[in-house]
């Protein structure tokens, strides 16, 4: 049996807006007026979500996965580094899996390298530094030219790795970034640098890039069949690069909720549909602005295919095809074990809170994971 690490994930959803606004703003992104944002409610939600991270840390999760989005009520984290810094201090054991810093929209990657260095030092070496390209809206919301998305991703990555591994001072004269002095007095604790992971949903380009760098690739909840295809691309690329892909190279994010009774779990699991498939309702120009991806019709269609409204699947169908796993510890353990072994993943990210789930139910879910599900999964 291979080793798998289990990570707790929530998007930190902002749930305090009036759901009626979705009639006017179906995609709930970019142009949905932020007059619907109540900072008092957000302040309370942040506090609650941070408490839940502490419970996950104490309950035995191997890590906590966090993320970042902009102009998006489904995720309150406008800066993944701020959540990372909070976790560095309020948790003790869990790895901090940042999936991830949206490199193309970062204007100063040197500062990002410094901040990640601080998070790794403050957390005593618990950082896993994920890097993402970000969806089209992240480019639009940050007003960074989407036509340079991939170029900026790759150059920012190269600069950060150089910053972490090459003694300063040195100069950087790139296409998108230039520094007369790279010489930060903030470097990661882990050497040569923290583990890097790369998430994705569909783009083969990203899988190939991750495999060439031997970085674990985390599939963000795509259908199992498509996930297997992406893993196959990783395996082939690894072979071309002269190494054998193992479970440590692959991760999978899955929506999952555990409760004491099947009825309760079924009821709470519907929260994964709370935004009524809003993401898939984005115009193509937001999801994949021209230039964001290579001018490749098939690629863009694939991107949309996996971004289709989650709620077009009947709830039962979503459970049948493992897009959502809900139930008691026993039933959930069995299903997660099936997915883990089918995909052969060394990293399982468990998206265990969403929508209007209460703190009490979320805390109970995390506890049941810690007491029953995770030990059972680790046993076999």
């Amino acid at each position, binding site marked *: 049996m291979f080793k798998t690490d289990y990570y707790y994930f929530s998007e930190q959803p902002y749930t305090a807006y009036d759901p009626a606004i979705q009639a006017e703003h179906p995609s709930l992104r970019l142009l949905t007026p932020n007059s619907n944002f109540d900072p008092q409610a957000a302040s309370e939600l942040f506090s609650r979500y941070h408490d839940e991270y502490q419970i996950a840390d104490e309950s035995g999760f191997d890590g906590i996965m966090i993320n970042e989005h902009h102009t998006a009520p489904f995720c309150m984290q406008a800066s993944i580094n701020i959540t990372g810094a909070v976790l560095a201090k309020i948790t003790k054991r869990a790895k901090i899996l940042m999936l991830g810093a949206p490199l193309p929209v970062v204007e100063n990657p040197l500062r990002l390298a410094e901040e990640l260095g601080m998070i790794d030092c403050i957390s005593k070496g618990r950082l896993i530094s994920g890097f993402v390209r970000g969806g089209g809206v992240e480019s639009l919301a940050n007003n960074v030219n*989407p036509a340079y998305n991939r170029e900026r991703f790759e150059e920012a990555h190269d600069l950060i790795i150089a910053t972490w591994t090459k003694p300063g001072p040195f100069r950087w004269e790139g296409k998108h970034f230039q520094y007369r002095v790279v010489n930060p007095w903030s470097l990661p604790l882990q050497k040569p640098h923290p583990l890097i992971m790369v998430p994705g949903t569909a783009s083969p380009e990203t899988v190939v890039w991750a495999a060439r760098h031997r970085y674990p690739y985390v599939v963000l909840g795509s259908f199992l069949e498509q996930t297997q295809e992406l893993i196959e691309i990783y395996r082939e690329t690894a072979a071309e690069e002269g190494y054998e892909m193992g479970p440590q190279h692959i991760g999978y994010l899955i929506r999952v909720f555990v409760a004491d009774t099947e009825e309760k779990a079924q009821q709470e699991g519907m929260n994964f549909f709370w935004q009524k498939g809003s993401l898939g309702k984005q115009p*193509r120009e937001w999801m994949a602005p021209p230039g964001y991806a290579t001018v490749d019709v098939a690629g863009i269609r694939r991107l949309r295919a996996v971004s289709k409204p989650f709620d077009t699947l009947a709830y039962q169908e979503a459970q049948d095809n493992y897009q959502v796993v809900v139930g008691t510890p026993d039933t959930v353990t069995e299903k997660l074990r099936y997915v883990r072994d089918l995909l052969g993943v060394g990293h399982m990210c468990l998206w265990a809170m969403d929508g209007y789930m209460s703190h009490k139910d979320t805390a109970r879910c995390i506890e049941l994971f810690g007491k029953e599900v995770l030990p059972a999964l680790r046993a076999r």
Partner: protein
Amino acid sequence: MTTPAHPFTEQRLSVGPAQLLVRRTGSGGPALVLHGEEGDEGWLAFHSALAASHEVLAPSHPGYGSTECPEWISEVRHQAAFYQWFLQQHDLRGVDLIGVGLGGWIAAAMAVMSTERLAHLVLVGAMGVKPERGEIFDIFITPWQQVIDRSFHDPKASPEYQRLYGTPVPEFGGAREAGKTMSIRMAFRPYMYDPVLPGMLGKVQVPTLVVWGDDDRITPIECGEIYRQGIPGAQLRTLPRCGHWAHMEQPDALAAVIRDFTAR
């Protein structure tokens, strides 16, 4: 989709190491017509109308699908330098330079560089300067079909609209995808203007006509005012029942206005 019935040739003309696709026809003084953010839509009724009085040269800009983009072109002023290079390499003189929309911005940037080879400058619904009161409509976050519809005053009454966009445009791919990508590359931020362009317009010493559709819902007419005020001696005319893409919606009226202006 049928092409307006006017014989024209398609040529590859060298610009340095690049090979520019140029459609040309007609006789008379040379008119270089620069398309805009609509992209390379091929031979247009406007080109045919203008060919009655001019030798029309209608290129497909680097990066817009038919002309491979040299690595160094990523900004509007690079396009302008590219087309100045084109005029120089082919020793074109007495050119009537006509730019529409984003192509108007390229034309204005060319004129700032040099008017030596130009006889007249015509800017049609040109981007490139920042409006003080209104905003240039954001075509990059709007579904393309909506951008097209908004660029006409009355799409239903326009034969060019019916010919080019009468059946819904494909959402992805093709020359339009390449063109939109190139426009984003050049004009994403600042959006559709060069902050220093107005300060340089006073250098333009060539008879200049600024033409605006009276119902331009993409580029506010105050941009036309900025061009008129900035370029010494420039005139501003509006076309009735006309949106942003005047060359598509009122091809004959636009050609007549240009013919009238350039004949002086």
